[in-house]
């Protein structure tokens, strides 16, 4: 109970500090942010209006308090570029990113668990060596290179899938066709990391006395891995998957740019180019809050995975 309370206090402190840090971002601009954004030709009235709209005269803590007040009422401000409410912009983009990320993580897990199990069962065996080499190759291929390679092969070479773009779910077939390449890029990149982590943890678990005991009682390898070894080995993997999902609000700028997917990442990138502060602040803050919340959630999941961790949440 106590640890839960300290966790909550700490999470709130992190969010508050993050808010002030985000609100201090315009201060990085040299000189008057209004001039920096609108240019020297802007009239004093325009500059004043800009400053007032962003509440730039206030200190970062005050600006954060103001932002928080609006956020509670569902008002995240207005985009400087489109003039639309930031909530509307995000509401349009977020489902796309969430779908992408969820599918990507699921694909990563679907690859990771069986491959890591086969590798860990016979470390140094054929399966292990092949998967290790592949994992290292993937690990060393940045998402933007992998994405381009996939386009080159599947879209340009074989021409079975669209190279870029997005289709609304109204047309399920086209939607899925457009989903394949970005999800593949995300899933493979993530799987390379997860396989290495889960394999190492599984190998450690398979050496424990309790696995030896279970083996001596005649459990089949399949049951041993799935029902006895997987759960105690999954801490780091769960953490990484949680972290990946937590960054959903920030979106995956790279994958969305390569495949021209209209998600949060593209929204963030264009907002940064245009110095559209209300949008930038909303994206950074919402992303940060999600990471903190998911982090807390992952701690709770630990308790489900391992009864020993139920009382020991603090590190």
């Amino acid at each position, binding site marked *: 109970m*106590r*640890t839960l309370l300290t966790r909550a206090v700490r999470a709130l402190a992190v969010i508050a500090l993050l808010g002030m840090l985000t609100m201090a971002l315009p201060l990085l601009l040299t000189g008057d942010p209004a001039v920096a954004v609108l240019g020297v030709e802007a009239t004093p009235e325009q500059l004043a209006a800009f400053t007032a709209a962003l509440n730039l005269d206030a200190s970062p803590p005050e600006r954060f308090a103001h932002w928080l007040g609006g956020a509670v009422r569902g008002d995240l401000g207005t985009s400087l570029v489109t003039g639309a409410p930031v909530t509307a912009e995000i509401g349009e983009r977020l489902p796309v990113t969430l779908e992408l990320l969820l599918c990507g993580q699921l694909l990563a897990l679907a690859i990771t668990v069986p491959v890591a199990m086969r590798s860990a069962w016979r470390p140094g065996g054929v399966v292990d060596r092949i998967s290790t080499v592949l994992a290292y190759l993937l690990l060393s291929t940045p998402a933007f290179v992998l994405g381009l390679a996939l386009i080159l092969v599947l879209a340009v070479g074989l021409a079975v899938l669209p190279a870029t773009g997005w289709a609304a779910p109204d047309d399920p077939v086209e939607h899925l066709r457009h989903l394949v390449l970005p999800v593949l890029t995300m899933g493979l990149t993530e799987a390379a990391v997860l396989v290495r982590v889960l394999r190492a943890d599984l190998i450690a678990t398979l050496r424990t006395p309790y696995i030896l005991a279970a083996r001596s009682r005649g459990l089949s390898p399949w049951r041993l891995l799935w029902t006895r070894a997987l759960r105690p080995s999954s801490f780091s993997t769960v953490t990484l998957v949680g972290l990946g999902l937590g960054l959903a609000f920030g979106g995956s700028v790279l994958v969305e740019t390569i495949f021209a997917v209209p998600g949060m990442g593209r929204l963030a990138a264009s907002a940064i180019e245009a110095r559209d502060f209300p949008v930038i602040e909303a994206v950074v803050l919402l992303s940060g809050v999600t990471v903190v919340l998911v982090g807390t959630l992952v701690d709770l999941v630990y308790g489900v995975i391992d009864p020993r961790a139920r*009382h*020991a*949440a*603090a590190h």
Partner: protein
Amino acid sequence: MTRPRGAELVVDRLQVRYRVPGGWIEAVRGVSFTVPAGRTVGLVGESGSGKSSLAKAVTGLVAPSGGSVAFAGGPVRHRPGPGGIQMVFQDPVASLHPHRTLVDLVAEPLRWAGVARARRRERAAAALADVGLDPAVYGGRRRHQISGGQAQRVAIARAALAEPELIIADEPVAGLDVSVQAGVVNLLHRAVADRGASLLFISHDLGVVSALCDEVVVLYLGRVCERGPTESVLAAPRHPYTRALLDAVPEVGRVPPPSRLPAAEPPSPLHPPPGCAFHPRCPDAVAACRTAVPAPRELGGAVVSCHAAAPQTPSTEPVTSPPPDRSPP
């Protein structure tokens, strides 16, 4: 209050507690005893008794949460040079720096005392030879190149070279084979006996303690059950826990008597029972044991904390002075 005399260790109502997830562990709950100068005292307890926490508090590695530890009339300080406290750890390999050679390891206390390199290596080599390790063969080895028993010999040589007035040994033979244990016990005995230093020997093994120690302190869940001269405690244990412990100690060729303890499991140090901590397992428990912590009483030469322990012919048996006031032989 006992006035400390010479290099006497006085532990007075010591308390140690640790923060753990889900609360506090009161590892040591008001322990008092004395190690008189030149004496060997055994501290016996099973897991959860608080014996290791006690060792750490006495050596100043953790701060007590209550009570006091006094050595030679003052607080315990870590200072180089002779006359202080040295410690021998349970895991001898872990207590040696992984990168240093055995000669340098043994010479460590001299290094901090400012002895010149050549001189301290010379003395360290002699100390190694003294514990049965040929410096020509072992001097250049490191901790991973020797066995556990040899590592404990190195640790004892190192502690002895510091010329302490008190050595604290925390389960020094627990991880060793019986064929090696006796050698380590003999070395420890020699390390203190030769110079009239005192020894606080912490162990779960009454057999080893009985052979080595002048006095014994029995701990259960952070409190002292019974303390007194080894002969008296072994011959006529007054506390039911001491009796149970003596019954349970494996003895070659002895068919153990059936256990008198009720089937209750040892309680967790996180939730010690109220009153006398032993009462749920005690065959002789009376009503008072469930509510009141028994005060230490002097019974036939030993000090016992038990409501049920009766003085055996108190009028005729001569009452010897309590252990803190015993003079060194």
